[in-house]
C-alpha cells in the first residue's frame, strides 16, 4: 500500500493497538534521551565519534530487535522530510551535519535516532491515549541498549542530557488532542492556560506561531527531574482526561444548540474531500477536523478514524510525492492530493 514510504506501516498485529479516546486524542508520544558515558556530547563530538556511535548501536541491535536502520545521508531529501511528517524523527535531526542514523522497529511505531542533540533519542508514537503500552515498548528498547553500554548517569541528577532542560528521566511525553468543541466555544485558551499552570507546555500544531490549524494541540510535560516516569505519565493522562471531559461538554452544547449547522458543516467537509480536484494541506487539515468531529459524534458512520489518521499523514507534502513516486510542484501536489483523498474515501 505504501511501497515508497517504507516506514509507513499499515496497522497490523505488529503495531501497538489503538489506545482509548482515540477520536479526541489523535496520538500519544514518548521521547527518551540517553547519552553514552565515554563519548563526548554533540557539541564536543568529532566526526569519528559520531561514526563510532552509529557502528556501535548497529552492532548491538544486529537483528536482535526487528526493524530497519536508515542512514540519513543515504536518503533522498524527500524521504528525510517524510520521516519527519511521519513523526519518526525530529525537525533538528534532518538538518544535522554529522552522520546520523535512525532505527525503526518492525511495527513502525518506535524509532531510535542516533546523533540527535543527545546520542540516543528513543521515540514511540501510538494512536489514542496509551502511555502504558507505549512506555513499555520504548523502555524495552532503552533497556536493551542500556544493558550493552554505559549510559551517562549521575545518582543525583539521573540521566545526563546535552541540554539541562531534559536532565533526569530524559523523558518527554506528549499528547496530540483534537479540540474543535473548545475552539468553537472559545474556551480553548482558558483550558490550555490552566494546563500551563500545572507544568505542561501547550502549543498548536501544524501552523506557525499562534495560528491554529485543524483544532490540533500538543500538550507535553515541562519538567523531567523530580518525578518518576510513571508519575509524569499519570499526570499527563489525568490532564488529558480532564480536557476530554470539558471538550465533550462543549460538543454537547454545540450539538444541542446548533445541530443542523454542525451537521451541515460536517457533510459539506466530506463532500469537498470526496469531490475536490485540487486541495492544499491546510484545507485538508481543517476539513478533516470537521469530519473527525462527525465520526466521533456518530454523525458520519461509514468512515473510520484509522482512515482519517492515514489521510492526515499521507496527504502531507513530502508523503504525497512519495506515495505517487514522483517529484511534484506545489500545484501538481494539490491535484494528486485531491486524487488520493477521493480514492481513499471511495469516491473514485
Amino acid at each position, binding site marked *: 500500500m505504501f511501497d515508497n514510504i517504507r516506514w509507513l506501516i499499515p496497522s497490523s498485529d505488529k503495531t501497538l493497538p489503538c489506545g482509548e479516546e482515540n477520536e479526541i486524542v489523535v496520538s500519544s508520544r514518548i521521547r527518551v534521551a540517553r547519552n553514552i558515558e565515554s563519548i563526548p556530547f554533540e557539541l*564536543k563530538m568529532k566526526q569519528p565519534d559520531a561514526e563510532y556511535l552509529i557502528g556501535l548501536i548497529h552492532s548491538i541491535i544486529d537483528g536482535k530487535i526487528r526493524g530497519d536502520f536508515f542512514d540519513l545521508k543515504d536518503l533522498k531529501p524527500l524521504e528525510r522530510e517524510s520521516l519527519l511528517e511521519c513523526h519518526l524523527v525530529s525537525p533538528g535531526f534532518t538538518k544535522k551535519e554529522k552522520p546520523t542514523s535512525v532505527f525503526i522497529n518492525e511495527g513502525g511505531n518506535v524509532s531510535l535516532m542516533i546523533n540527535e542533540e543527545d546520542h540516543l533519542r528513543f521515540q514511540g508514537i501510538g494512536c489514542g491515549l496509551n502511555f502504558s503500552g507505549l512506555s513499555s515498548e520504548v523502555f524495552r528498547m532503552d533497556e536493551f541498549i542500556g544493558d550493552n553500554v554505559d549510559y551517562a548517569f549521575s545518582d543525583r*541528577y539521573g540521566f545526563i542530557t546535552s541540554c539541562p532542560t531534559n536532565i533526569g528521566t530524559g523523558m518527554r511525553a506528549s499528547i496530540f488532542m483534537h479540540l474543535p468543541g473548545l475552539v468553537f466555544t472559545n474556551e480553548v485558551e482558558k483550558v490550555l492556560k490552566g494546563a500551563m499552570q500545572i507544568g505542561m507546555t501547550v502549543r498548536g500544531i501544524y501552523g506557525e506561531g499562534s495560528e491554529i490549524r485543524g483544532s490540533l494541540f500538543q500538550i507535553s510535560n515541562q519538567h523531567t527531574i523530580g518525578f518518576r516516569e510513571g508519575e509524569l505519565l499519570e499526570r499527563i493522562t489525568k490532564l488529558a482526561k480532564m480536557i476530554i471531559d470539558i471538550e465533550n461538554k462543549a460538543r454537547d452544547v454545540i450539538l444541542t444548540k446548533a445541530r443542523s449547522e454542525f451537521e451541515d458543516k460536517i457533510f459539506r467537509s466530506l463532500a469537498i474531500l470526496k469531490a475536490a480536484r485540487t486541495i492544499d494541506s491546510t484545507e485538508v487539515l481543517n476539513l478533516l477536523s470537521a469530519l473527525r468531529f462527525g465520526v466521533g459524534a456518530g454523525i458520519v458512520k461509514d468512515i473510520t478514524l484509522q482512515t482519517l489518521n492515514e489521510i492526515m499523514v499521507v496527504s502531507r507534502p513530502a508523503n504525497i510525492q512519495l506515495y505517487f513516486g514522483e517529484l511534484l510542484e506545489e500545484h501538481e501536489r494539490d491535484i494528486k492530493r485531491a486524487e488520493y483523498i477521493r480514492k481513499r474515501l471511495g469516491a473514485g
Partner: protein
Amino acid sequence: MLCDDCKNRPASIFFKEVLPDKTVELNLCEECASKRGLLGAKKLTPIEIMHKLLKQKSAQDEKVICPRCYMSLAEFKRVGRFGCAQCVATFDEHIRHFIKQIHQSDRHVGRKSQAGTKKGFEIYRLREDLKKALDNEAYEEAAKIRDKLKNYGIKDV
C-alpha cells in the same frame, strides 16, 4: 461588584488570605490586582528560565574547566549545553540551584541506569578488529577474534 481599590472598574479577581488573627478579603479589577503584585508574572517555561539564568556570569567561570572535554563554565553559560557526561560533576556546585530553578527539583527519583553486562563496546571493537584482520588477510588472527566473539554468544560473525 466594583473593585475595592479604584471603586471604578468591575472586580474580577477575588483574593482571600487567612492570617492567624484575621481573614483578608479583596475584590479587585485586573489592573489594581497587578499593581498590588497579586498577579503572578507570566509563567516562564524551563527553556526561558534557563536562558535567564545563563546570563548570570561570574569572573570565576573561565577557570572552572571540565577535565574530560575542556568545556569551561563560561562556555556552558554561552551555549546552554554540556560537552560530556563529566561536565555535570565538574559544574555541580554551580548548576545545582540552576537545575532546581528550571525544574523545581534537583533530585532524580526515576529509573536508574542498570548495571547490565555492558559488553556492547567490546563486541563492537572485536568486530572492527575482525574486519581489519580479514582486509589484511591475517586469517590466523581473524580466527582468534572469531572465537572471542563466539564466547560472547555471537554466532553470526
